[in-house]
């Protein structure tokens, strides 16, 4: 009996990784299955069982809670993950190429002051890399929240698009000559990914409005 109690306690500990809503509804049931499948005399969960529970918990916490039939919403969430990947690639590229940019700059202009280079790194490159890192986290957060169907997440994502588009437009208006070509390309790709994800996210609302209009007309 003590062995079974210990085993049950062990399973309960691993089940804590699951979302609270899932535990509330299914913990007793999953526990029943785990105990029914336990070997005679088993005192603690097997490592394979623990890994399986951990994997199940992570999958339940991270994967979108959107039915596969809702293709538009599923694709929108995937595009958000793509946005995170593009931002991450941009951040990694900035960090990985600082050295070669510096070398190239000093080769072309040997008299370039060190202090000015430090100012460029501190004033432009470092903030851009940090901003890209924050943007990665934001894209991932939006993918997670929209994957769970939170309405506020859709609105926040739309506002985020406004900020993104404004940033791109502002940069272009400030003078495309100072706007690096690669930077412009990344900004444009992100804006297009954002726009496509937003269109898919609001797909049903757009169709509903279009339907109302056509039926009214």
């Amino acid at each position, binding site marked *: 009996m003590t062995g079974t109690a210990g085993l049950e306690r062990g399973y309960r500990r691993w089940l804590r990784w699951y979302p609270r809503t*899932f535990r509330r509804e*299914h913990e*007793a*049931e*999953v*526990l*029943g*299955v*785990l*105990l*029914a*499948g336990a070997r005679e005399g088993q005192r603690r969960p097997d490592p*394979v*069982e623990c890994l*399986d*529970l*951990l*994997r*199940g*918990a992570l*999958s*339940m916490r991270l*994967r979108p*809670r*959107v*039915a*596969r*039939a809702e293709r538009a919403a599923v694709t929108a969430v995937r595009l958000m993950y793509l946005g995170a990947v593009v931002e991450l690639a941009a951040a990694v590229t900035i960090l990985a190429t600082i050295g070669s940019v510096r070398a190239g700059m000093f080769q072309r202009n040997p008299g370039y002051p060190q202090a000015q280079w430090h100012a460029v790194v501190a004033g432009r490159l470092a903030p851009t890399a940090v901003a890209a890192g924050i943007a990665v986290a934001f894209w991932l957060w939006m993918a997670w929240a929209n994957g769970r169907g939170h309405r506020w997440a859709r609105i926040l994502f739309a506002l985020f698009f406004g900020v993104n588009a404004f940033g791109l437009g502002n940069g272009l208006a400030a003078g495309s000559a100072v706007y690096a070509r690669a930077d412009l390309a990344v900004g444009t790709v992100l804006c297009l990914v954002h726009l496509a994800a937003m269109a898919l996210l609001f797909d049903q609302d757009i169709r509903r409005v279009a339907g109302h209009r056509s039926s009214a007309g």
Partner: protein
Amino acid sequence: MTKRTMQEATFLILTALAAGSQHGYGIVADVARISGGRVRLRAGTLYSALDRLRLDGLVRVDREEVVEGRLRRYYQLTAEGATQLATEAARFQANAATALARLGLAEGMAT
């Protein structure tokens, strides 16, 4: 656009439910039986799959009962679940028939 193929665990869970509603451990035991002991579903995998199948409308909760102080929830196939399982089974059957025919074993299958 091609439809995503069903994972083996999902296919076997739906097959286990095709004969009637079953509770979690019943599904685990049935899947082991159907697969000849090759597939042993673990609780994490089973409930992850059931959660996804419920979300997709392929499976629903039939009833609950308490046996020896433990909750048992029975799951059953929905009409959509039955349709998708039939489609997938037909696809497997067609692929298997082609493979066997090309290996010259098609007659063996018929007998």
